[in-house]
């Protein structure tokens, strides 16, 4: 009896003591500076400037020093980079990059594409804020299919490659787009059908100024909606885009379906260029 009373009282003492220890620590934190910061309006600097230089944010490609070697495309484990190279129509010796798309929505920011790049053209930046209403607006197109850029020739023994300031290119791209911009009307990859050839040229200039991210517009109708390509009202295009997504998978036997944008502009370019 005596002993149990002693343990009972001992327990009470220990508990009170623990309380005191815990509470004193907790209270001491009331007097210290808080470690949390209100984001984003109370940060002293823009958050991207507080990040370490190795931060793996949005990918950026400097087209001026891209050699078109496609090493990044091969290194990407999820295939969010899509590159297309063609011979320049005017100068057959010169290869041009007609497409360099990076789907930042798919990208897992692992950094594997940056490592094999021979010139450092593709780099992670410290940009990370670019929310978009439509996830498809997060596809960054570093090559204009209508104005392909020539591949960079590495000079022998070159150690330094003139690169635009890291982050400036991607920031310009992010700032250029509205967050609630309508998504690009990605069309399914075109099945081999020659009659479509006469439709694109008149349509291309109409579609081009609308949005930088939507050069896919000229490529016409999915296989189902064949008839009048010249009329091309916006509703028809929209309807085409809606049917496009489900239609894409069966239409493309070779290419994986998530990159339907890839194939669309390609056939149009040779005709527009000259």
């Amino acid at each position, binding site marked *: 009896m005596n002993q149990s009373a002693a343990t009972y009282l001992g327990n009470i003492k220990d508990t009170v003591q623990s309380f005191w220890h*815990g509470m004193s620590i907790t209270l001491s934190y009331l007097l210290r500076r808080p470690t949390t910061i209100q984001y984003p309006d109370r940060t002293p600097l823009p958050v991207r400037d507080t990040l370490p230089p190795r931060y793996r944010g949005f990918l950026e490609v400097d087209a001026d020093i891209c050699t078109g070697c496609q090493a990044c495309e091969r290194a990407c484990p999820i295939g969010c980079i899509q590159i297309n190279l063609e011979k320049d129509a005017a100068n057959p010796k010169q290869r041009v990059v007609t497409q360099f798309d990076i789907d930042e929505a798919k990208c897992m920011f692992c950094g594997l594409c940056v490592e094999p790049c021979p010139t450092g053209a593709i780099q992670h930046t410290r940009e990370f804020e670019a929310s978009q209403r439509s996830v498809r607006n997060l596809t960054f197109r570093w090559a204009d299919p209508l104005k392909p850029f020539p591949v960079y020739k590495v000079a022998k023994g070159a150690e330094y490659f003139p690169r635009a300031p890291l982050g400036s290119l991607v920031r310009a791209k992010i700032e250029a787009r509205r967050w609630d911009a309508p998504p690009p009307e990605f069309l399914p990859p075109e099945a081999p059908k020659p009659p479509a050839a006469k439709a694109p040229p008149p349509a291309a200039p109409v579609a081009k100024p609308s949005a930088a991210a939507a050069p896919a517009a000229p490529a016409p109708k999915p296989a189902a909606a064949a008839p009048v390509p010249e009329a091309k009202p916006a509703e028809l295009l929209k309807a085409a885009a809606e049917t496009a997504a489900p239609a894409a998978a069966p239409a493309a036997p070779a290419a994986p379906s998530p990159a339907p944008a890839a194939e669309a502009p390609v056939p149009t370019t040779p005709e527009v260029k000259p």
Partner: protein
Amino acid sequence: MEKLIMRRMHQGGTEEMILNFGPQHPSTHGVINFLVETDGEVLRRAVPDVGYLHRSIEKIAESVGYPGFMPYTDRIDYVAAMFANEGWAVAVEKLLKIEVPKRAQYLRAVSCELCRIASHLVSVGTMATDIGATTPLVHGIRERESINDLIEALCGARLTYNYHRIGGVAFDLPAGWPAKVKVFLDHFDKLLGEWDRLISFNEIYVKRLAGVAVITGEQARNYGLVGPNLRGSGVDWDCRRDAPYGAYPELQFEVPVGKGFRGTVGDAFDRYYVRVLEMRESARIVRQALAWLEQNEGEIMAKVPRKVKPEAGEVLSRVESARGEMGYYVVSDGTEKPWRVHVRTGSFLAMGIIEDLSPGLMVADLVALIASLDVVAPEIDR
């Protein structure tokens, strides 16, 4: 599971209940379901039902190839992704018969031990929350943020590090980084004392955990428990010391073992406190490895062929992760993609013992048991 329900339905007339504990319950540490058979507050048994987070990571390995699988390993255990990276790198290096440069090994040790501290901070913090003390988690997360900042400066990501590479590591130390780590570690050593006063030896906390869900050493071995769960039961086994890899043979550290700190050997408190002691040892290892890194120079990547194409064969790597021994079993058929990959993780093994430990536990003690085993749902299912 269906059988269990049907049996209960046909028996009828008892006062026992079958409850679904989870899959979205805060104290199951992720998406795990427990089918709990209770009689009032006492458990008849609890059957873990895993698989809600299965993402076929092992199958993905078969389609993306050896270097491309590295970022996926981050997703196996997102609380301690560094170890998953290391395990995969070690496995493929064994397969390719590559010798990793010494500096890379030390960099791996530094990054992994920092990650272990971060993981254990989350573990002990969530354990305190599950027991009912909400404050310690916030302290743990706060310290983990500092580690995340350090690792972010090292490799560019806070959670999915993808820092290790086949044949070495991706980056060398950034300028001024060792000094920052030392400042943190000095602060952290003090914090551990504060942590003990705040929660570890809090009388209520101890009373809730001491003597609860005792796993004897023999039981732990039989169920194949690994890591702190095994050591908490008094079995002195640590992969870093007993099956050494990387830089660990050259580093001095103790392996804390459960001794019945406040109750019996192998109770929930032992498993908890072994983790707290391990954090201290990890801090020691980081200091030693950093001192070595500051004095020595060297390569951080071995010569790895551009196309990783190992010879046909099979290999097993084991690394001591924060959740115990992590093993990668890789079978190569001589092509650029592995023929089969299997990941052996500590959380999955820990789930096996819950059904046998649960009879007679209180419902609230089941939470303590799950928390003390430190399971992470994506690591169970992969």
